[in-house]
């Protein structure tokens, strides 16, 4: 949240046309030796000069704030939220905000000109997404041709805007429950409640019987004892379980699985060739898993 560092101002196409028209008027005034012709030609010239100041003033001292952008799935529009902050006592009018993706040739402009009195004004700019990964933006551009459209002032306030784009959910494989389908060689492990397999932090919905009370009494959080084969079944969503060659389609399938597992209330973890997550559930866990997919190396990821 800093003041725009530098403002640029140049005549617009209309402004150049205006200058041409002034020249013709001046020639007419000279030719007919018309005093009022001179006066009005110069008045219009003065008007153009004065609008430079007004155009410039329309953007000076305007602050831009940004807020976090909610991640989206590839193909969905990412909504970038900008907030203009006018701390002067005069209103700003007809401002156009424009964002531009850093690498891809996608951009988006405000459809309605923005006007704001003293205070704040929120703008939401949708930008279509294509691939997964970070969608980083160049510095947003604010511009205005207010009041007469003869000059355009623009600035690029130093704001870092980015949106995480998850892979697009894809594929039709069923969830890999232990013992069926893809993970059946692991299904042998399902031995019952007694097979202790580890601890994890308590989450709502865990059975009180599984809480490791001794640890809790020692004020070490509230660990929950995990047993393989416990209900609801834990899912392992694994890269190598998907019989597809294409990386993106594999990631799409994993993405769908994560969404389905979350929706059906399963606890799950994600195993990719070079990384894996804890087993868990909930919005935060889902985001961590999806982020891992989004940033998986390869096309679009980092």
């Amino acid at each position, binding site marked *: 949240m800093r003041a725009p560092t530098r403002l640029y101002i140049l005549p617009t196409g209309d402004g150049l046309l205006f200058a041409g028209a002034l020249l013709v008027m001046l020639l007419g005034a000279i030719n007919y*030796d018309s005093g009022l012709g*001179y006066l009005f030609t110069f008045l219009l010239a003065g008007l153009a000069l004065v609008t430079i100041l007004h155009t410039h003033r329309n953007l000076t001292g305007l602050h831009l704030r940004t807020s976090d952008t909610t991640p989206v799935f590839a193909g969905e529009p990412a909504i970038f939220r900008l907030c203009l902050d006018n701390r002067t*006592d005069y209103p700003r009018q007809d401002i156009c905000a424009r964002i531009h993706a850093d690498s891809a040739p996608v951009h988006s402009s405000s459809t*309605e000109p923005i*006007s704001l009195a003293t205070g704040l004004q929120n703008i939401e700019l949708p930008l279509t997404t294509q691939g997964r990964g970070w969608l980083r933006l160049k510095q947003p551009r604010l511009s205005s041709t207010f009041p007469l459209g003869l000059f355009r002032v623009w600035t690029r306030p130093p704001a870092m805007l980015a949106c995480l784009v998850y892979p697009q959910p894809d594929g039709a494989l069923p969830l890999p429950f232990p013992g069926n389908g893809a993970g059946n060689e692991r299904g042998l492990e399902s031995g019952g409640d007694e097979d202790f397999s580890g601890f994890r932090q308590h989450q709502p919905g865990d059975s009180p019987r599984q809480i490791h009370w001794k640890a809790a009494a020692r004020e070490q959080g509230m660990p929950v004892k995990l047993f393989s084969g416990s209900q609801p079944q834990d899912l392992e969503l694994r890269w190598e379980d998907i019989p597809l060659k294409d990386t993106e389609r594999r990631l799409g399938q994993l993405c769908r699985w994560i969404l389905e597992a979350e929706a059906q209330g399963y606890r799950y973890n994600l195993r990719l060739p070079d990384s894996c997550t804890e087993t868990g559930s909930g919005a935060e866990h889902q985001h961590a898993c999806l982020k891992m997919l989004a940033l998986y190396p390869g096309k679009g990821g980092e």
Partner: protein
Amino acid sequence: MINRRPSSEQILWLCAAMALVITPHLSRLPIWAGIAFGLLALWRLGVAFGRISLPARWLRVFLVLAILPAVYLSQGTLFGRSAGLTLLAALAGMKLLETQSPRDAYVVTLLGFFLVITHFLYQQSIAIGIYMLLVVIVFTATLMTIHGHGLAQAPIRRLRYAGILVLQAMPIALLLFLLFPRLPGPLWGLPKDAYSTVTGLGETMSPGSVSRLSLSDAVAFRVKFDGPPPPAAALYWRGPVLWTTDGRTWSGLSRGPVHRLPDHGRNGTDTRYTVTLEPHNQRWLFALDLPASTPRGSVLSEDFQLLRRKRIRQRLRYRARSRLDQRPHNISAISAARALALPQGAHPTSRALAKRWRRESRGEQAYIQRVLAHFRQQPFYYTLRPPLLGGDTVDEFMFSSRRGFCEHYAAAFTVFMRAAGIPARIVTGYQGGEYNPLGQYLVVRQRDAHAWVELWLEGSGWVRVDPTAAVSPSRIELGMDAAIPQPLGPPLLGLADNATARELWRNFRQSWDALNNGWNQWVLGYGMERQRQLLARIHIDSGNLAEIALALMLSITLSLGILALWLWRRRAPGDPVLGLYRRFCQKLKRRHIECGRSEGPVDFCRRITRQHPQFSAEASEISRLYIDLRYGSKRTDISRLRQAVKIFHP
């Protein structure tokens, strides 16, 4: 720019602005163009607001193509001022109809600005200047509307912003106006019709040609005397001298040899003065009879006309010197023959009567007096509206109509002199003028146009005889107003006979003319010469373009800088509650109820209740809201205070 169809609001602005700029042109445009423009604008409004659709494409193309032949058919040409204006108006109308995008709307606005400028090719009065200033503001607001992408805003706020912009542009306009290097126009050949509206004396005189001017209040020239102005009866402003006639029309000599001014030497009795001549698109200058000097750039013809090499198309100031008691006394044999010539067979009755009177008179003087006495004693009338003379103009005037303006008397008198063998010529010009005590100058108007006669008398030279004076002496001594008082006085009010009203009217007219004179000198007449003088005063050589450019840039930068400081000034955010309360106090102050310096809102309210019980209820309510908002719970809505102050009308 976001490309979208112009909103109906934008179209309304455009149509209104275009209507404003076209209206004063309507009298100059052919009727079809005015009607066509109105229909096109209405059609576009119908498209924007109603359910009418735009005309089919082929029809639009046809209409555009039809403009050129239509202009050509009605104007006879495609070039020149009138045809150009018609073309511009028609194209603007078509473009208005075709406005489909902001760019189109912008082009229409530019055409509108062009139309503003075209007005000044026809007239440059103060009134049209003010009107066009308002039109420019409306167009500026229109431009804001176009670029505001249909941002809803009250028209009055748009106009206000546009007005502020124009106001802020004025200092720059003034600097450019004063300092921008003036070029001698015209840059290219002016179209022939450029000066068609200029009024003034013509090169020839026929019955009606001077009386036509008598209805015009237009200023011919203004004179500033070095000393006290001469008496009205001596104010004969010499113009074209007419020698030859075909029986109806009198005309001057083709440019004869230039006469070297006989060196009379400087004389203390010379009248010296400065004339500011309105452009009349002729070559002659006016000077008091008889000019004793030739102003710079002019020559004196044999018959004592001051002539310039080029037609006078700009307001011209010149110094002149005249000797009121001097008469020309040169005549050559050719001149004498010309001054006696009458067309074969013309005016038989008059000539017969002249010959008879000449025989009966003892000398030339007696004959001249007899003719003048005839004008005086017979029922001749001096009138602005002489009847049309169809047959032999002089005979008809002398023996049947007997109503005429100065040209009738001058022509008839000259015929009577020439028929009797006395060389005579007609001098046209102006007689008298109105002294403006405010500006201390004399205004000579077109209605002061006059024609008189010069007779060649052995021993005396050319003697001025004014036959009009015989019929209407007051015309010469008191001026046109006294001779024909009818056109004076505030028109339409029925006050023409009221002396006070006439005096007021005269004062008003003189102030108005003084204003016009300033306008002429500084706005319209500001050219190379005045610029040179002005620049010399601030020590800038008008020949040095670099110096002028530097001065121009510095001064414009300075004025923009001042404006920028003003625009970016830090204004205290201000407490809106306090502001509203102050507004309430101001409203009371207008009723002479003032809040004392040490008086708090509670005390003030009590005092109002005590002294002005009629405001008690409202004042209590406002005070209560104010105190609560400013010092109290602050839970009150400020809009209640705003509303209460707004509707409070003490």
